[in-house]
Structure formats: structure tokens, C-alpha cells
């Protein structure tokens, strides 16, 4: 009975989506206050009903209701409760429900927290979001209903959740990603609403920006979390594979990053408007494209959901309607968007635009790289693969001008170029030299070989860090002493600094790992030792280590550095009773600021020795901490007091 409540709730929510999509939009067109004002309550009701639907599904999981097919396929009575709940989004149908719920959350949030926006504009925005909701809800109801029952058959127990997913990563990674993907629909809706209305003043950018920033923060954190999860879960020492599903998350991120910078410029300077509108449309379009690629079976990936041409067709039709419709609207009504104002060649606008271009070029690389194998094969030219070597290579070359411009831009003024740029050039030259010196010093201290590719990466990172610090100094000492000036810098400013330093940290982590990672597969007997990267790994002993639902072995390793004992690491090999065929390795990871040590135990070999894999990964944590720092930067930007909507002035002007 209860799952039916969830199903019914979803149906009513869909009906409300229809109302939300149509009613306020007509109201906006004919300027009918009643219809315009209906948007907010409709959005809130939709949210409540979607929440109910989702909670009901979660309840079905929590109570082991295996009469619901989706629960039977993805859960098991022995599963710990937290994994039962996260199993709700472990499969296609449930994850779509999460998508739709996330959309309802964002729609209601926009409805409630938008006091500064004229109601007519808000009505249009909410209607557009309602249209998107229609698409997703119909998709769920017609092709992917998680509430379908298995009755008259009732499974005694479920199939269980894939063991690789029984991990804390599943609890956080998908919800954060979805908050990001779906959050870009807000910027999208703002852009469409503006195109419909035929006007795009600077206030539009101001309204859109905080929503876009929050979505971007979620997506950044979600991707970083996914990367970290893959690293420790899959145990290949890798953190990014350029897999189509990973690329599907990275493309909206690239567009989103370009967008938050473009919005900043449109808001401040009133320029780039047309470009910003196009980016707003693109970011969400890429989210939708990602949804299609991941669920349609069109591309081969370990992460892809089980596919079905009927589902793929629906999503494709939806994609064409939303993206095609919005791009058509942009083409036809784009002429109404006029940017007034100009900027000099060495202005901050120019350099922001340069990096926007580079970000979108990177986006094109990923997009073409992901889709070309499909196109190439369909055109009869054969199967090709585009993967890590290609993407890493191109991104290295794009990163060089990108990081350089990123360092320079904050030091330039808006609009006009300085009459005399020579002092700036001298500063930059000094910083360049300092960066290179530091970049050579770092591997000289931590490694035994200096590799040019790594030095380039480190130099770019130091360049970004030092220019950011210089900029802070210049801004702070503009009118005050440094100590006073620093306290007066706004959150928005610190947001920028953190965002850029986060990127620099990632660059350090990536350059170090790509070039100085050491991986060894060895056969070791108890008592054996191996030395590399200044660490001594001693395989002390191995013994049986059994658990309640598995049996296995545990190996004990003593790690010392330069003769001094550092730590003990335990690597295990387990055979779970439920899955005899594939023994699982419990890898041991000793994390540190400057390096991770990783040990995985393999099979026992013919001569009684054990296969052991050991990794040394220098500075790998910087990659995810960098992502974290970037996210914190984004949060700081949103918390800037400009976005507190308790602004009485704005409320009065309504």
C-alpha cells in the first residue's frame, strides 16, 4: 500500500509540474498578478510531494519491501541501514527520482529565496524549471518507475547492492553531483526567462550568480569526492580515467566554471552578456547530455547504468526539445541582448575572456574526445579509442596559457589598461623566475630526478599562488596598512583567492603524481624487504584473518624511512562467502600531506610467496584538498553580504 502512496505522490507532483510550467508563464505574458503569484505555491507543493515520494521509496528500502522490484534488485536484508538508504539511488530508476527531487528542491528554493527579483521574471524562471520537471517526471512514470511491484511474485530477499558501492562514497557522491547538475538548471531558467522577456540587464547576472555558484560548489565537491572514492575503492592508484561517465560530469563543470566568471563580468561591467546566456544554456545542456550518455548505452563505460533503447529515446527526445528549443530561442531572440561598454586589450575583461575561451576549448576537447569514437564508427571509419594519453597530453598544453592568464588577470584593472604597464611586467617577470626556481627546487628536494613536464606543472602552480598573494597584498595596501587592509577585503575577494589557490594545489598534486609516482608489483615472502622512494617496506608476517561473512589473510608491513620506524600497514585478502568467485583485496593506505603509501595483497603464488603491489604517490592528497579549497572559495563567494536578501532597499523597490 505504501509504495503506491509514493507512486501517487509522484503523479500529482507531475500534474503540478504541468501547472507550474504553463500557468505562471501565461500570467507573465498577459501580466495577470494572480497567475504570476501562483508560481511560488506550486513550486513548494511540487517539492513537498516529490519529497514524500522519495521518502516513501527510502522507507520501502529501509523496511526491506521486496515486493517493490527496484528494492529487490538493489538491496538485501543484511545490508546495513545506511547502505539501504543510499541504495535508493544505486540504480537507474531511484537515481532518476533523486534527480527529480533535487530539481524540486532547487525550484522551491528559487521560489522562496528570491525576494529581490521582480515577480514577473521569477514566474518565467519557475515555469521553465517546471517544464524540465515535466520531462523528468514523465520519464520516470512512463519508462523507469521505481515503484513497480513484482507481485504476484515476492522475492524472499534482494539481489544485494554491488559490493563496490557499499561504501560511504555512495552516500555522498551522487547527491552532491546531482545538486550540481540540477543546480545549473537555475542559471538555464534565468537565461531562458530573460530571452523570452527580451531583456537582459545587469541585474539578471546578479540574480543568477549565487544560484550558479552554489551549483558549481556542489559539482566541484561531487567530482572531487568521486575521484577520491575511485582512488581508494578501485585500488589502481588512479584518480581519473577520462571515462565517458567521468567526462559527462567534467563537461558541465568546465562550462559552469566559465559561466561563474562570465556572470561576474556581466554583473560588474555589463559586457559578455550574449556569451553568458549561451554558457548558461550550455552548462545545463551538458548536464542533460551527460544524463543521456550515462543511461542510453550509447557509450561503453564501467559506470554506466543498464541501458534500454526506449529509455534512451525518451531522454534524447527530451534533450532535443530542451537544448534545441533553448538554442533556437537564443538564435532568434539573441539580438535583443546588447552589451554596452568596451574594454582594452590588457584589461581584466580580456584576460577573463581568454580563460573563458580556453575553458570552452577544453570543454570541446572533452566533448569531441568522448563522442568522436561513436561518430567515427557510425561513419564506417572503424572503431577507435580516445583515452588517458590523449586527454592528459592536450590538457597539459591548454593548462599552460590558462594558468598564466589566471595569474595575470587579477592584477589588471577593469576596462582600461594602465597607461604604463612596465611596472606590472617587471613584477610578472620576477614572479615567473621565482616560480621556476621553486618548481625546480620542489622535485630536487622530494625526488631524485628533475622532469621537465613536472617542473612546468609546478611552475604554473607557483605562478598562480604567488600572483594571488601579490594581488592580495596590492589590494590590501591600496588605502590602508597591510594589517588593516587585509581585514577589509570582502568575502568575494577571498573566494577568488581560494578558488585559484585550490587550482594551484591540484596542479601540484597532478604534476607530482603523474611524474613521480612509483608502482611496484613484487613477490614477497614474510621477512622480505623492499626499498624505494626512501621508504623501507618490510613484510613482517601474514596470518589468517576471518570475519563474520568472510575468510582471508592479513599481511603486516612495517614501514620505515631513513632508518626510523614510521608506521604499520595491514593489507588483507578476503573471500566473502556470498561471492566466492572473486576474492577482494582490502588495500592499506597510509595517507600523508606529501605522499600516500598504498599496499595491496594479491594471490599466493606457486613458490609460496605472495603477490604484493606497492604504490608511492607523492602529493596526491593535494588534488582533492585543492578541490575542497576551490569549493570553500565558492561557498565564500555566495556568503558575501551582497546576496543576503534581507536587503530592505531591494524589498522596498518591489
Amino acid at each position, binding site marked *: 500500500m505504501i509504495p503506491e502512496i509514493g507512486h501517487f505522490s509522484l503523479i500529482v507532483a507531475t500534474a503540478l509540474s504541468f501547472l507550474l510550467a504553463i500557468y505562471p508563464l501565461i500570467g507573465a505574458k498577459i501580466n495577470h498578478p494572480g497567475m504570476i503569484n501562483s508560481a511560488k505555491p506550486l513550486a513548494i507543493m511540487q517539492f513537498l510531494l516529490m519529497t514524500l515520494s522519495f521518502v516513501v521509496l527510502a522507507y520501502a528500502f529501509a523496511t526491506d519491501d521486496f515486493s517493490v522490484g527496484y528494492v529487490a534488485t538493489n538491496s538485501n536484508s543484511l545490508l546495513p541501514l545506511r547502505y539501504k538508504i543510499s541504495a535508493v539511488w544505486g540504480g537507474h530508476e531511484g537515481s532518476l527520482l533523486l534527480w527529480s527531487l533535487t530539481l524540486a528542491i532547487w525550484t522551491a528554493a528559487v521560489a522562496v529565496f528570491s525576494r529581490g527579483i521582480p515577480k514577473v521574471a521569477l514566474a518565467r524562471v519557475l515555469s521553465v524549471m517546471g517544464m524540465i520537471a515535466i520531462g523528468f517526471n514523465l520519464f520516470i512514470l512512463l519508462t523507469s518507475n521505481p515503484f513497480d511491484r513484482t507481485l504476484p511474485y515476492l522475492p524472499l530477499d534482494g539481489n544485494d547492492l554491488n559490493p563496490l558501492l557499499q561504501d560511504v562514497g555512495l552516500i555522498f557522491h551522487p547527491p552532491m553531483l546531482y545538486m550540481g547538475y540540477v543546480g545549473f538548471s537555475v542559471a538555464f531558467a534565468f537565461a531562458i526567462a530573460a530571452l523570452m522577456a527580451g531583456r537582459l540587464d545587469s541585474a539578471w547576472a546578479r540574480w543568477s550568480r549565487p544560484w550558479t555558484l552554489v551549483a558549481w560548489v556542489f559539482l566541484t565537491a561531487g567530482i572531487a569526492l568521486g575521484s577520491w572514492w575511485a582512488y581508494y575503492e578501485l585500488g589502481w592508484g588512479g584518480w581519473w580515467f577520462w571515462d565517458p561517465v567521468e567526462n559527462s560530469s567534467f563537461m558541465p563543470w568546465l562550462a559552469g566554471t566559465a559561466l561563474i566568471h562570465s556572470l561576474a563580468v556581466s554583473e560588474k561591467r555589463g559586457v559578455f552578456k550574449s556569451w553568458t546566456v549561451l554558457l548558461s544554456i550550455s552548462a545545463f545542456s551538458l548536464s542533460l547530455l551527460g544524463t543521456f550518455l550515462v543511461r542510453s548505452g550509447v557509450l561503453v563505460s564501467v559506470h554506466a547504468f543498464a541501458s534500454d533503447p526506449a529509455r534512451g529515446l525518451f531522454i534524447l527526445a527530451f534533450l532535443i526539445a530542451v537544448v534545441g528549443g533553448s538554442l533556437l530561442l537564443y538564435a532568434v531572440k539573441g539580438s535583443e541582448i546588447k552589451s554596452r561598454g568596451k574594454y582594452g586589450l590588457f584589461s581584466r575583461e580580456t584576460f577573463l575572456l581568454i580563460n573563458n575561451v580556453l575553458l570552452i576549448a577544453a570543454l570541446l*576537447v572533452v566533448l569531441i574526445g568522448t563522442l*568522436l569514437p561513436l561518430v567515427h564508427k557510425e561513419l564506417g571509419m572503424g572503431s577507435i579509442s580516445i583515452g588517458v594519453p590523449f586527454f592528459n597530453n592536450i590538457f597539459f598544453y591548454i593548462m599552460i596559457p590558462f594558468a598564466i592568464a589566471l595569474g595575470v588577470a587579477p592584477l589588471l584593472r577593469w576596462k582600461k589598461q594602465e597607461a604604463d604597464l612596465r611596472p606590472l611586467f617587471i613584477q610578472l617577470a620576477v614572479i615567473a623566475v621565482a616560480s621556476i626556481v621553486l618548481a625546480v627546487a620542489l622535485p630536487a628536494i622530494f625526488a631524485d630526478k628533475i622532469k621537465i613536464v613536472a617542473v612546468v606543472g609546478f611552475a604554473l602552480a607557483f605562478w598562480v599562488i604567488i600572483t594571488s598573494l601579490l594581488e592580495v597584498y596590492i589590494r590590501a595596501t591600496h588605502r590602508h596598512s597591510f594589517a588593516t587592509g587585509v581585514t577589509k577585503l570582502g568575502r568575494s575577494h577571498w573566494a577568488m583567492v581560494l578558488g585559484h589557490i585550490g587550482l594551484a594545489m591540484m596542479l601540484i598534486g597532478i604534476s607530482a603524481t603523474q611524474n613521480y609516482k612509483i608502482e611496484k608489483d613484487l613477490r614477497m615472502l614474510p621477512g622480505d624487504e623492499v626499498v624505494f622512494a626512501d621508504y623501507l617496506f618490510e613484510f613482517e608476517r601474514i596470518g589468517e584473518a576471518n570475519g563474520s561473512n568472510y575468510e582471508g589473510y592479513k599481511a603486516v608491513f612495517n614501514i620505515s624511512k631513513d632508518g626510523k620506524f614510521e608506521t604499520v600497514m595491514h593489507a588483507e585478502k578476503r573471500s566473502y562467502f556470498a561471492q566466492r568467485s572473486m576474492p577482494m583485496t582490502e588495500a592499506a593506505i597510509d595517507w600523508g600531506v606529501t605522499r600516500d603509501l598504498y599496499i595491496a595483497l594479491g594471490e599466493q603464488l606457486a613458490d609460496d610467496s605472495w603477490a604484493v603491489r606497492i604504490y608511492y604517490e607523492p602529493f596526491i592528497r593535494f588534488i582533492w584538498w585543492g578541490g575542497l579549497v576551490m569549493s570553500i572559495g565558492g561557498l565564500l563567494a555566495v556568503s558575501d553580504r551582497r546576496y543576503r536578501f534581507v536587503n530592505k532597499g531591494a524589498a522596498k*523597490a518591489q
Partner: protein
Amino acid sequence: MRKLFVLMTFMLSFNVAAVIDVYDFDNAEQEALFRTLTAELRCPKCQNNNLADSNASLAKDMRTKTYHMVVAGKTEDQIVDYWIDRFGNFVLYKPPVTLGTAILWVGPGLFVLFGGLIIVRNSRRKVSVAADDRDEELSSAEKARLAKILKDSEK
């Protein structure tokens, strides 16, 4: 609960399904070549895995064969060609540079070029006085509000 805590979890053990093959090489260069090859070669039947990461028996056979070729002194190009001869370009994660794949480099390259040109052109453009400015005119109340907003944002 902060992501911080999750990210900074201390020494932990994690679940992984791994098959670790141990091969004996004559020197470090051979080992490095083997690692490079097994990373850039793709398992023909897997769901997007390279030879190093795949548990499939076909991948194991390919790794073993690759190992023998490395130890026999073959170069990277020779070994890659060997596999492409049997499985086609699909088996290498580096796309071939042909007319059909040119767009991979040309597409983004052209975009950067055009973007650069537009940037330079726009920086030289004079302010255009739009013909129908009247839509853009603000009331004095709106102007005052806009001025306040702009002042707030000029930090």
C-alpha cells in the same frame, strides 16, 4: 558532517577486487615500458578498462604476451602495432592522427583562434550607440538603485 572529515580519514583499508600479476624484468626500463603499454592498451572486451586494470582472461593473455614481447626487446611501437594488427585502433587509447580524427585537434584549435580574434576585435571596437536605446533607459528610481548595487559590487 564536513567533507573534510571524510576526506581526511586516517589510515584505512578499503575493498578492492584485484588481480596482481608479478612479472620479472631484466631492468627498470623494461618494467617502465610494460607499465606504459598496459596503461595505453585497451582491453577489447571490457567496459572501458586498460590492460593493467582488467581482470578479464583476455586481458591477462594480452598482458602475458606483451610481457614476453617487452623482454624479447621489442619497442613500444612494435608492440602497439602488433596489437593494432589484431584488434584494430580500438585497442589503443591514443587515437590515430587521420583525416577522420583531425577534428580532435582542429576543432578546439580553431575555437581558440576565433576566440582570440574576437577578443582582439572587441577590444578595439568603439562603443556603439544602439539604435533603440529607449528600452534600456531606466527610471530615476531604478537608476538610483542600480547605482547603489554597482557601488556595493565594486569591491
